[in-house]
């Protein structure tokens, strides 16, 4: 049986292909896309756009305020979101396995 461990509601860790390490995978499609010691957001698909373009309810937000959406590179499921100003580092969440 495959050793799948929870990282978040959208992410799991799975044994790496070569053994000796583990990989982050999308929970929805189980496709691995980086090692667990990497910053997984750097390997996800990023959509970053002004929050004001998200809808009328956000029209009053600052023009510089960004909504970041991180998608699974394989199936397109949203893995996480964050609000950021330009140049801001990604929020990093890690599980110690």
């Amino acid at each position: 049986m495959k050793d799948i461990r929870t990282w978040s509601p959208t992410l799991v860790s799975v044994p790496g292909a070569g053994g000796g390490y583990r990989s982050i995978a999308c929970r929805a499609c189980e496709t691995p896309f980086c090692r667990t010691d990497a910053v997984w957001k750097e390997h996800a698909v990023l959509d970053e756009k002004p929050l004001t373009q998200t809808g009328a309810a956000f029209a009053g937000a600052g023009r510089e305020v960004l909504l970041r959406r991180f998608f699974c590179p394989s199936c397109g499921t949203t893995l996480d979101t964050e609000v950021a100003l330009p140049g801001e580092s990604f929020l990093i969440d890690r599980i110690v396995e």
Partner: protein
Amino acid sequence: MDPMTFSIIRHRLFRIIDEAVITLKHVSGSAITNEGHDLMVSLYGADGSLLMGGVGFLHHLTSAAEACKAIIRRFEGRIREGDVFLLNDPYTAALHTSDIYLVAPIHFDGKLVAWSACFVHVYDIGAMNPGGFSPQSTDIYTEGFSSPGIKIVDQGEMVQDVVDTMLNMVRSPEMVMLDLRSMIACNNVARERTQALIAKYGPETVEAAGAELIRQSQDLFRARLQELPDGSWQSRQYLDVEGETATVRLTMTKKGDRLIFDFSGSSPQSRHAINCTRWAALGGLFAPLFPLLCYDITWNEGVIRLVEMIAPDGTIVNCTRPAPVSVATVGAIQSVNNAACATIGKMLAASDKYRGQATAVWHANHFAIFKFGRNQKGSQSIGILTETFAGAGGARSFGDGVEIGGEVPNPISRMANVETVESVFPIRYLFRKRKQDSGGPGRWRGGTGGELAIVPHKAPDGGLHYVISGKGARHPMSDGLAGGYPGAPNSYRWARKDQPRNGDDDARLPGGAEPVSWGVFPLMGEDALYVRWNGGGGFGDPLEREAERVERDVTEHLVSSEAARDVYGVVLSNDGALDAVATEALRREMKRERIGREAAR
């Protein structure tokens, strides 16, 4: 200890707080207390440690413990039965000057055995702006009366000269006195009921039960932490004030049975009164921790022992005197609440066992708007718009957030009836309702916030003025979780009858509108004040939300048809009916577009 006796004493301690809260509300004459429930009552051990946390604003549970300890240090050898002490200095223990702590020793057979402590946001504290929140203050010296500890009741007798000195510095002293009396009455009830409990079971038994209660909380919380995954989670909160943006940054690390909240990297303290002191930041992180992680554990010192906070000196979360802090409770403290709620939510969501307890951030942005002026009865009135307590629920891992559903840091917060406000202030509500699209989109949608507009009505002076500490219009603060979007940010607008409208102006308002956020403004003549408050954060991918739920949201005006299509990928016909085939095609196309993009690096 006999488990039945222990359970009875534990339950009785909680009921003592319950009864004291009821007393506080019944005696107080302030809407912020008896309508908004901006209050707190708790019981503390003889050394000032938290024994039984009560309800109300939970950031006060640990700060009031520090207030008890500060009084013990200052008045050592002079603490007698029937005394009541006042403390409201933020650099000693309080959150801001207008949240006054009254702490009272509880004696039995002449021995100090416990403390009761409570707070209310008093009617006024003599700051440069009425009502306690003082956005125009630039230091603590302009934020009103401030005491690191003073005795106002000496062995049952009011120390009238001291009380009169304080009342001499505040607006509406009769209302502030009523606030003080409500807290004295509250502490009297807590003391009498605790003494009755001790008389029934004996001092040794009650003391042993208290020690057991703290040990039990520590053991239960330790066990819970050990069940949760080790790791670290980050969040950040932006606070915009007058064109300046400050940031609260948090890395929460959980290792074994320890939880560390590290605010390193947060902005330097601000010249604006959004800062908070160290004790306030500590209270701010415990406010969501208690209900989210200890929902079935007694909130006391046993929990506190397993938590560490790192808050660098001179930052917005641990400012140094004389930085202004009067807006702290809706400023840095609330951002600490939100950041802690976000990281705790992520940690819970990372646990297969506890994912059901995870939540996106709830109502994350209080607005403090204090109306003041002569009312229709000819008397001076000062009071908060209690809609700031109405809140909005964050989405959970299994369901939507509750519309206008309160907030995590205060489990009993609520807003006053429109009629109650209109009866004591010379205003009329044009509307107060749920705000469409304000709930953060997600597989589970954040609860909607609300919107309101008020106009002067039967005002002898043609209207009134208001103090607004309205940060957070530029940045959403109710973060989503697991791919959910944040709730929509706040908005504050002054609609002027004589101002021409432009295309974006709200037709429900009397004229063209301009943003207001910080300071003192008039509400006169036929002008209106419009306020929109934030929704809760969403949970999960909006494209995963059942299309039928989106259809129902649109029918109930909680989500617009534009948001249904653009955010949720749900296509509705002109009559609002779900087009399942078109929806499936649109969602497939939206996901395809996502995959076509480059990786983040």
